Structure formats: C-alpha cells, structure tokens
C-alpha cells in the first residue's frame, strides 16, 4: 500500500477536491457576463437618459437592454432580442433597475464563490491536519525520540494554516486572472499586431524573470520557516527545562542562545524584505515599461501615419486592464510558492516510513482474540539506533501464565527483552513469535489490550488522576453518549467531507469488559483494588481528605460527614489516645494552628491564600487595635525575627533548614536585619505602620510546635482567644464571604474534609498519632460507606501536565495501576517501579503475583529489575549480562 504523502501540493489539492474545484470554475465562468455587463451600465445611464443622448425630443423612445451576440473578429452580429421600447424616464428607471439587479447578482455570486472557496479551504485544512496527526499516531517508535513535540505541534497548528486560504484559490483564481489578462491581450492584438507583440514580449520577460528572482525569496521563506520552527522547539525546551536551567545558573547561556537564534531569524527576514521589495520594484517597472513603449513607439507610428490614432487610444485603453490581473497573477504565483514550500516542508517531516498500516489500529468494539501461545524468541538480536548491539542471539520461551523475573543492570539487555515484547524495538535478526503468529505482525488493537507494558516513565495527559487511570481503557466508543449529545448529521457530513473519522468523542470509551466491571460501582471497586495493590490508595485517600469540602460533594452529602465527625469524637474520647487530636474549641487556644488561624478560627476560600499578605490598611486588620493585640503581636514578631536573624543571618539563602522555618523568606533576611536595627529601643507607638505590619505578619504565621521558639505566654493565648469574636464582628461584608468559621454543629465548606471530620488538628510530636488517627478515620469512613467517596475526591486531583504534580514514584505507581486495571493477558514491568524503595516494591510484587494466580483469567508477568531480592519472588529468573542471557533458573 502506498502510504506516502503527495509531495506536490497541487496534486494533493486536485486529488481531494477535483469536483469542487471544477464547480468553482464553472460558477466563476457563469459570473463573468454579468460582471462585465455591470461595468457598461453606468456609462449607458449617464450618456443616455441623464445627458439625453438619443432622447433629443421629449417623446423619443429607445430600445434598452438588447441581447446581441457580437463577433469580435468582424462587424457582423446576431441580435436575439431587440430590447424594450421605453421613453427617457422609463429608460432611466429600467437601466437603474438593471444596474441594481447586476449589483445584487454580482454580490450574490461573490458571496457564493467566497463561501464555497472558504469551506473548501477549511475542509482541506481539516483533512490535512487530521492526516498529519494520524501519521504521528502511526510513526515508528524510534521516530518519537527524534522529533521535538513542539515542532510537530507548530507544523500542524501554524505552518499549514495559510494552506487553508490558498486551497480555495488554487485553480479558480489563476483561471479567472488568465482569462482576464488573455482577453485584454487579445484585444490589443486585434487593434495592432505590432503593439500586441511588444506587450507579449514584455509580459514574457515579466513572467520568466520575476519567478526567477523569486526563487531566492522562496529559499529565504524556507529558511525563515525552519528557523522559526527551531525557535519554537528551543522555547519549549526552555520552558520544560526552566527549573534545571535556573538551578544551574544557565539562564544567561539560554539568553545568548535565544539572542543568537533571533539574530539569525532577523537577518533572514530582513534579507527577505529587501528581496521582496526589489522584486516588486522590477515588476512595477516592467509593468509601466509597456505604456512607455505605447506612448513613444505608438506615438511615432501614429505621427508617421502608419498607425490609426483611434487604434492607439483603444490599445492604451485595453492595456489598462492588463497590469491588474498580471500583478494579481504574480502575487498568486508568489503565494503558491510560499504554500508549496510550507507544504513540502511539512510533508517531508511527516513522510516517515514505515508507518504502521491503518488496519493495525482499526477500531475494535468487539472483544479481541487472546494471544494463543507463548512468546518464543529464536536467535533474536536487537540493536540501538547507532547500530550498537543491545541483545544478541537470544533463545527463550516465556509461557503466557509464567511469572518471570529478568535481572540485569541498565545496558545488560534485560530491559531490551521487555521492549521487544512491547515492540518498542524490532529484532534486528531472528524471529519473535507470540503463539502461532509473529509478534511484529499482530495489530495494535490486539497487543494494546493483551499485553501490558509499564516503563519507568509513564506518560499522563493533563487531567485528573481518575482520567489518567482510565486512559488505558479508551480503546473504542463502547457505549453511546448520553441521550441528545450524539453526533449531528451536519457533524457527520463534514467529517466525511474532510476525510475525518466519525468517532464520537463524547461516547463512553471505557472498556468495561476489560476492567471486568459492568457498572460504575463495580468499576469503583476495581479502581480501589488496583490502587491498593500498587500501594497508592493511601496517597489518593489523603488527597481526598485534603480537598476542601466546597469542592463538589457529590456521592456523599454534608450530613454524612457531620455524622462522621460525631462518631470520630466519640471513638477518640473513648480510646486511650484522646490527646492525639487537639479539637477546635471556640474558647480555647489551639496550639496546632498558627496565630492567624487561631484568631480567624475558621477557613478561607481559595481566593484568599495568604491572609498575612493583605495590605496593612485592609479592614481585615481592624481587630488588631483592640486589647493592644497589635503591640503584643509586634513584640512576638520582633522577638522571633531577632532569633531567626541571629541564627540564619550568615546562612546562604538556599539553606534547606530555612524551609522549616518559613516565618521569614530567606531573601528578606537582610531587610529584617535592618528593620530590627531601626526599631531597636523605639517605643511601639513611634514605629511606622509598615514596620509594625512586617513584624505582626511574622507573628501571625507563628506556630509553636512547628517553629519552637517558645514565645507564647498564657496572657497572649487568652488575648488571641478573645480576639476571635472581635475579628468576626469587625470583618467587612466584602470579606465575610471568604471566611467560614469552625462550628461544631456545621460543616465548614472552606475547610478540608479531614479538618471537618476531626474538627481539630492532629497533635504534633506524639509518636504514631498520625497513623492512629488515620486508621480511626479510615475505619469510620469505611463503616459509613464513605471511603470510596473520599478516594473519588482524591482521584479528582489534577495531576498536571505529564503528571508533574505527582512525585516520580506516584507516577510510576499510577502507570502500573493503569495497566493492571485493563487486565492484560501478559504484564511486562520494565523497571517500572524503580523510584520506590525495595520493601514497597516487594509488597507490590507479591500482590501482583497473587492477583496473577488467583484472578480469573490469570495473567503472566515479566518483571525486569536490577534488584535480586525482587527476583526471588518469581518462579523463574533470567539473568542478563553484556547483552546476553547468562542464566535461566526455575525455582519453586
């Protein structure tokens, strides 16, 4: 099958829009007569009815709008219709009406043609973009390492964009312009052969010379495109690597690099402009040279009497119609060059072979066949891109139900085994079969469901954790979309017209059969199981507990959580560790909270993140003036600052210990040092508001168990508890909505789920308190049937682009969970959990092996690792060294 892209833009356009292009040509041709007739009418109106030409007597009549077929090569003409006989006023009305009619008809033609061209262009653009993405999805795997994603994106997004506008013009415009120019030239020829030939000669020079000059422009356009694409690749590298760049102080090198690239682009672009306007100048000159010849040459001929003056005037008049179309033609040709360059560039980048044939990725909604036998390697070798041997002469059979460990350090060949089974690399020699078939010949719709492959760097698209988990199951639209949201006939028609598939994005693409679940509840159960298996359940559970209650409470109402709070309090006070949690009590200072949290005694909406950064004149601070709280907090903040400046003053600003002491931003230490000096021995009343606010800000973030500066007195604690009420009373209405206060009988929508249920904070410094409270909380939520609701809230956690908001180990665990969820027939984990500690990995491995054996149908496992201790858990161990299998032991 020929899977190459058409390198010639015109053939590509012709291939996909032949019928539409011909139709436009026909419509353009049809629009011509009225177009030219409309030019003539104003003259007729002025000369006729208005100036009175032909209406010399009041009752004179004339025939208007005759239909005459003229013969341009002679005087004979054939009259079809003599015209209407009308008087002067009648003629004015008739001709004016005709003018209006032509205007409407011309306008309508223009509207129709432009709309048609626009739609045609947009369809072709859609088709091209779709084809390009489709090809990306079928690239051979090594190609993905070679290309830069942002460059591919730029090509699909920006570089093909001008093609849309051009495609509609591709055939009709030149045909129209050539017609116009040809007509004008023909008319000149008819008047005077000599002048016609001169015109033709100059035209020839123009049409040959200008494109030649423009060849250089095309080269520059090409360079401009390539450098711009490079630039976008580099910019995205800077964004992706910004953290490393800054941590290594490479920013100025990046600046130099960008400046260098911009310079190159500048000179290319400037050169481009110089050429462009030079070509324009030459072109204009040639266009004006022709009339010069007419005036001089034609004039001489006329004076000598060898050319009729009437003919010369007619030639000059006819020539007026020539430069317009010629200029437009040359412009069109330039646009053609430009888009052809872009198109060729893009096509070259996407013309990669071998592409996966489309049928290997066909949509399969039916269940796909199982692999029918073991993986059999016969003298298999593999090489990397540079031709270095990665694995040599491998003879091996792995049964589909076996659990096998492959051990070897990186580069020893163990990981190549996994990559071969996943088909990320192809054998350079030997055969690799899966049962009766060659593994390489299996379609992706089979391997992608039957073989599970987990690498150390799984990728996740931007979205929630739940979406990431389910992303492995999106094989086909298994269930129709909700009623009324299906694809409309227009949507389907346009998809067909642009060669796009008719897949419904809004359908439910989750393969429930693969999960082994038919309902949402069963799916939830499976998700919980799989997360527990990879040791990720607690993490998402914790995410769930940290979510604010205001973030969607679907699945469980507020009453349920309030109930959980009551039960938690009961159990906690009944047990031996009641002191694990310090409850929120309106009349008691809570030492687990910062001073500001103690005063506001509630939670803030997401709009207020750092209350201490509120401006000093904000009404939020009204409460400070009561009870001399400002003086007390100022004192505390000053003392804390003094200790911190004393201890850290000489510490470099990247000192990690400072992270624990987050009261003062390390970069501001010198400011505070100066501030301390300025306020030394100064009475509070004389300190400026700004300076006061700085120290009070430090005090408000103070948390005794965390910062351990031993600065709280009972007196201050009492004052803070008293301030709670004045804080509430003095809170201005516009801020009141951003605060919600702790109330034992109410859910606090801005507080986290955990704060809501505990209605207090876990006491810092009690060994095991976090675990004990966590267990109790878990137990209660389980009893109330709220566990999954919490987990689900956790699964709504936005994992960020590529899962970057998760730690590497969490990403690896999530990657494994995603594959386990779809129950592959054979699971390959290629160092997939290497960011986790050994003990956790061993626990996960035991769980997976257990599941492989006990679930129905079970599955085989190939576990690639460098840790021998993990390998001991498997029934069979393969050892690799220097690209060869060195031992194959089966243990019981």
């Amino acid at each position: 099958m020929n899977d190459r892209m058409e390198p010639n833009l015109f053939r590509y356009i012709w291939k996909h829009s032949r019928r539409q292009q011909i139709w436009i040509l026909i419509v353009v041709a049809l629009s011509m007569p009225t177009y030219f007739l409309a030019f003539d009418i104003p003259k007729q109106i002025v000369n006729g009815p208005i100036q009175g030409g032909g209406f010399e007597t009041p009752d004179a009549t004339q025939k208007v709008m005759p239909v005459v077929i003229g013969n341009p090569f002679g005087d004979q003409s054939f009259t079809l219709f003599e015209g209407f006989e009308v008087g002067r006023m009648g003629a004015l009305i008739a001709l004016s009406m005709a003018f209006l009619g032509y205007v409407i008809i011309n306008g309508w033609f223009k509207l129709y043609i432009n709309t048609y061209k626009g739609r045609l262009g947009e369809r072709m653009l859609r088709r091209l973009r779709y084809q390009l993405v489709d090809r990306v999805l079928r690239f051979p795997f090594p190609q993905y390492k070679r290309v830069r994603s942002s460059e591919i994106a730029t090509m699909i997004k920006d570089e093909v964009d001008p093609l849309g506008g051009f495609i509609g013009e591709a055939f009709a415009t030149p045909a129209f312009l050539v017609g116009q120019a040809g007509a004008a030239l023909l008319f000149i020829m008819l008047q005077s052969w000599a002048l016609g030939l001169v015109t033709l000669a100059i035209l020839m020079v123009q049409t040959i010379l200008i494109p030649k000059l423009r060849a250089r422009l095309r080269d520059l356009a090409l360079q401009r495109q390539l450098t711009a694409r490079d630039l976008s690749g580099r910019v995205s590298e800077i964004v992706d690597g910004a953290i490393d760049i800054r941590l290594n102080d490479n920013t100025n090198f990046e600046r130099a690099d960008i400046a260098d690239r911009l310079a190159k682009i500048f000179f290319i672009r400037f050169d481009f402009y110089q050429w462009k306007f030079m070509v324009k100048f030459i072109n204009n000159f040639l266009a004006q040279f022709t009339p010069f010849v007419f005036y001089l040459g034609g004039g001489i001929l006329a004076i000598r009497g060898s050319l009729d003056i009437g003919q010369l005037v007619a030639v000059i008049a006819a020539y007026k119609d020539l430069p317009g179309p010629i200029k437009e033609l040359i412009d069109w040709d330039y646009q053609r060059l430009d888009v052809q360059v872009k198109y060729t560039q893009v096509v070259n980048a996407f013309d990669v072979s071998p592409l996966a044939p489309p049928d290997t990725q066909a949509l399969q909604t039916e269940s796909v066949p199982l692999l029918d036998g073991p993986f059999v390697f016969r003298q298999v070798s593999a090489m990397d891109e540079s031709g270095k041997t990665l694995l040599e002469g491998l003879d091996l059979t792995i049964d589909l139900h076996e659990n096998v460990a492959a051990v070897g350090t990186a580069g020893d060949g163990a990981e190549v085994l996994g990559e071969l089974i996943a088909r990320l690399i192809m054998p350079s020699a030997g055969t690799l079969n899966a049962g009766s078939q060659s593994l390489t010949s299996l379609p992706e719709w089979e391997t992608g469901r039957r073989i599970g492959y987990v690498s150390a760097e799984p990728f996740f698209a931007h979205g929630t954790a739940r979406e990431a988990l389910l992303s492995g199951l999106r094989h086909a639209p298994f269930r129709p979309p909700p009623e009324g949201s299906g694809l409309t006939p227009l949507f389907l028609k346009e998809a067909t017209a642009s060669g796009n598939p008719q897949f419904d994005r809004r359908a439910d693409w989750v393969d429930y059969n693969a999960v082994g679940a038919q309902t949402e509840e069963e799916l939830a159960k499976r998700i919980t199981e799989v997360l527990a298996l990879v040791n990720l359940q607690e993490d998402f559970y914790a995410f769930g507990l940290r979510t604010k209650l205001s973030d969607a409470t679907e699945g469980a109402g507020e009453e349920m959580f309030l109930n959980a709070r009551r039960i938690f309090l009961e159990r906690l006070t009944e047990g031996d560790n009641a002191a694990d949690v310090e409850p929120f009590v309106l009349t008691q200072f809570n030492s687990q909270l910062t001073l500001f949290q103690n005063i506001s005694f509630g939670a803030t909406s997401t709009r207020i993140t750092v209350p201490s950064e509120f401006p000093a004149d904000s009404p939020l601070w009204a409460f400070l003036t009561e009870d001399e709280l400002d003086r007390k907090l100022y004192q505390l903040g000053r003392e804390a600052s003094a200790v911190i400046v004393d201890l850290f003053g000489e510490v470099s600003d990247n000192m990690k210990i400072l992270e624990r002491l987050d009261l003062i931003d390390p970069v501001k230490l010198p400011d505070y040092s100066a501030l301390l000096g300025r306020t030394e021995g100064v009475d509070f009343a004389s300190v400026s508001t700004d300076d006061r606010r700085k120290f009070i800000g430090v005090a408000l973030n103070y948390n005794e168990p965390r910062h351990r500066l031993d600065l709280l007195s009972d007196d201050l604690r009492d004052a803070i508890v008293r301030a709670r009420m004045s804080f509430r009373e003095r809170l201005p209405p516009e801020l009141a909505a951003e605060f919600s206060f702790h109330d034992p009988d109410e859910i606090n929508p801005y507080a986290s789920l955990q704060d809501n249920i505990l209605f207090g904070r876990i006491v810092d410094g009690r060994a095991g308190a976090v675990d004990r409270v966590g267990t109790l909380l878990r137990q209660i939520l389980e009893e109330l049937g709220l566990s999954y609701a919490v987990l689900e809230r956790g699964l709504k956690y936005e994992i960020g682009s590529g899962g970057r908001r998760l730690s590497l180990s969490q990403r690896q665990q999530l990657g494994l969970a995603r594959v386990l969820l779809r129950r592959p027939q054979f699971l390959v984990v290629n160092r997939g959990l290497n960011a986790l500690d050994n003990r956790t990995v061993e626990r996960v491995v035991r769980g997976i092996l257990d599941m492989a054996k006990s679930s129905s149908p079970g599955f085989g496992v190939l576990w690639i690792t460098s840790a021998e201790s993990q390998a001991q858990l498997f029934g069979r161990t393969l050892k690799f060294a220097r690209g060869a299998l060195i031992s194959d032991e089966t243990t019981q």
Partner: protein
Amino acid sequence: MSLEEDALLLAKVELFANVAPRRLKLLALASSRVLFAAGQDLCVEGDEGYEAFILVSGEADVKIKTLTGVATVARLKRNDIVGEMAILRDMPRTATVTAVSDVSTLRIGKQDFLNLLKEFPEVTVEVMRSLAERLARTTSELANLRSAAKA
C-alpha cells in the same frame, strides 16, 4: 522545651560534642520533640531509618532478635541517642527500641542533619572527629578482644 534546652541536650551527645553551640541551636531548630507512650517502639529492627532520637526523659529498652528469641541488650536513659548511624548512612535499623515508660525525645531528621553538614563544613569536621575517635576506640577494643581470644 525551649531551643536553648534542646541545644544543650544535643551538646551532650558524643557525635555533636565538639560542634559550636550556635550550630547546635540551628540543629535544634530543625529538630522536633516527639512523645512516645510506654510500650511504643521508637524504631523497629529491619525497618529503614530516617531519623535519630535523643531521649529527653523516660527510659527505653534496646532489643535484638537472636536465634533463641528476642534479647534485651541495653536500657537507654536521658541524653542517650538512638539510631544515630541511620542519619549518616542508609541501613536498616539494627535493633528494636521500645519505650519502657512514657518517653520524650528530640527527633533529628536525616535530611535536616545532612543539610546542616552541607551548609557548615566545620560541623562536618567535628562530626568526623567524633566518628574517628569512636573508630579508634572500637579498633583497640577489637584488638584487645582478639588478643584475649588468642590467649
């Protein structure tokens, strides 16, 4: 439980004996007080360790698994340190330490300690000196044991 108090406590630990008090205050700031109830384990043999504990009050038993069962090998009191090796190198805990009474400790995190060493090379030198002294002592004890075994 003030900073001063904790800094003094650290100064009594052999490993930090020579470190300047100002630096110990920093370490104290980075550390935290942790309470263990009687019967709770401070650490469990075989677990990975990320922290050391200095006993502030209360007592704890050090137990080791042997072929015949669990043997108590030592009782720790105020100012004794538990798991100091864990903050210097990656290794599983070599013993289980269980609180006999309620125990108050000062917890030193491995990362905090390493950060301190990175920031202040002179602290590293002093810690090395303590370790070298300990090594010298262990070596001479070993030599004594060997000669005793030969005799």
